[in-house]
């Protein structure tokens, strides 16, 4: 499995500035391969999240292509792109993304039941909750969880359909050292099992787990050489 970005650009218009647009991501090429964990670091506002959202099929690029195994995902209609994201791309969005009206277990099962007529995912969901260390909170609601626990819920949810690509936006933000290690080890293990994993973060805490490291700077992606990687 290969997820490629070819000269992707995201241009935003703004009326108030002298120049009436700016580039959040500027003609960036990138390749994410199965079995590898890649980390993109960069300051806040450097365009990392925009880039990740474009890779996830959540934000259409102003120009350029995002190819999954050679297929331009933005050439698909919304129905097909949504189904593809559900089956092949697991996204861990930034921030608190628990769905309040569902229990932790239901949150994790949700990606599975969207396109399945059967509700037979309890075992797998529980297994994932076990892996991220919140199995005892299965029947709780996200509002009853700490920030770190909600983040782990989002990771378990992203892994539910065993996707070929995992795109994680600040997956360890707000987590303590112990939880950070749990999450990063889990993502590393996911990569080792064959998935292509991308972590986007403003800190380089994941670099010891990464196979390659990139830095995003004012919308441009540069590979960082000379760092000690996994």
């Amino acid at each position: 499995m290969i997820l490629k970005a070819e000269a992707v650009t995201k241009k935003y218009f703004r009326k108030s500035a002298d120049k009436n647009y700016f580039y959040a991501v500027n003609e960036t090429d990138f390749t994410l391969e199965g079995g590898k964990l890649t980390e993109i670091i960069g300051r806040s506002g450097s365009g990392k999240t925009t880039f990740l959202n474009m890779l996830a099929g959540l934000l259409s690029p102003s120009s350029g292509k995002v190819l999954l195994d050679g297929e331009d995902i933005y050439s698909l209609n919304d129905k097909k792109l949504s189904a593809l994201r559900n089956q092949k791309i697991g996204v861990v969005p930034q921030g608190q993304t628990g769905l309040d009206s569902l229990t932790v277990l239901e949150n994790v099962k949700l990606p599975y039941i969207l396109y399945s007529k059967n509700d037979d995912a309890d075992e797998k969901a529980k297994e994932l909750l076990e892996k991220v260390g919140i199995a005892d909170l299965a029947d709780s609601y996200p509002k009853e969880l700490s920030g770190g626990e909600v983040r782990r819920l989002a990771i378990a949810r992203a892994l539910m359909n065993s996707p070929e690509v995992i795109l994680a936006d600040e997956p360890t933000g707000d987590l303590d050292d112990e939880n950070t290690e749990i999450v990063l080890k889990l993502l590393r293990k996911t990569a080792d099992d064959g998935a292509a994993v991308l972590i986007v973060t403003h800190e380089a805490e994941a670099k010891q787990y990464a196979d390659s490291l990139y830095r995003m700077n004012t919308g441009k992606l540069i590979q960082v050489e000379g760092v000690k990687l996994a």
Partner: protein
Amino acid sequence: MLLCFLKTEAQKAKWRGKANKMSIHTLPFKNIIRKPGRTVALMIIVFLMSFTLLAGTVAVSSLQSGLSSLETRLGADIIVLPDTTKSKTDLENIMFQGVPGCFYMDRSYLDQLSEVEGVEKITAQYYLASVSAGCCSMPVQIIGFDPETDFSVTPWIRQSYGKDLGKHDIVVGCNINKVVGGKLKFYGLECNIAAKLDETGTELDNAVYCNVDTIKDLISASKEKGLNELAQKDPDKIISSVLIKVKDGYGIDDVKDYINIYVRHVEAVGTKSMISGIAESLSGAADMIKVLIAAVWIFIFVLLFVVFSAMINERKKEFAVYRVIGISRAMLAKTLLMEAAILSLIGALAGCIFAALFMTAFGTVIEQQLGLPFLMPDIGTISLYGLIAAAAAAVIGSVSAFYAAFKLSRVDTGLILREGN
């Protein structure tokens, strides 16, 4: 709560399993149940919408039916009265205010009027007001009619009583609080209640009806007790009013004008013009209610748009998460529409049920306050109005939510996620 009714643990576990079963179709229910504050607030808005529509529609319909019922019950095209201001006022009081009264004229006018060209049917009526004294059970309007010529009261009585009324038999309006087979005493004379009439929604529901023989006995009894100074003459020689049905091909106004010009000491009044005043009041009241319904609907319609837009805006992040995990725009819109439709339907049905109960319970009070004929539609018609009102409110609620969701679904999920951080 349902679990209390299940006996075995196996049954409880099975029920729990079903209740917890999750699919894309159960998402709207989970959102509704697990956000009770939001659910109740939205339901109340739709509730108000359907309540206003149904209660208002029933009120307008009741006023219109009341007027139509009054027209039907009068049955005549022209009413001829003694030519005094008091007699006309008394008749209007009897018909529209429920104030018992009486007036009399010589019976010979009946023969004179029957000779007028264009008269198809003609009959006399006799009015007597009972008093609140020991000799009378209650103060009511007593209306006597001649069964041989009557075309006004008899068709109405026939709806609830198939036989001819005997001497001292009476038929009571539906608002008279007595049962069939009971007795009412007027001026010391006991009368048998033979039947109770169907509701007309007018003051005629508060009257008592009897044949000409009975009313003459009652007028004599009132004279004997010195309580009817107006009926000084022999009861056989007096009548209160003459009801006329005009032949096809003759103008009601022409016949009425002829009587007013050529028959002295009487006044002919067209029933349509007599109720035109009340029709104007009714039209005014109905228009006011219609304007009120429209105003409330416009207000609630705007309110619903604002509330749903605010709610969907507040849930932007939640919808973005749904999109992140692979829900399509169409699926998301369907889920939201279903959620809004369920909320709106429950709110709308509750509003309609409450409006129907309210109108049934307070119909009489409204009638008294308005001082207009007020005949509530039957339960089938109210149900039909209710279904239309519920459907309208549910559709408006759903459309408001759908429009807001549609607008949001056009925005890139990535932008929403970016906004939220």
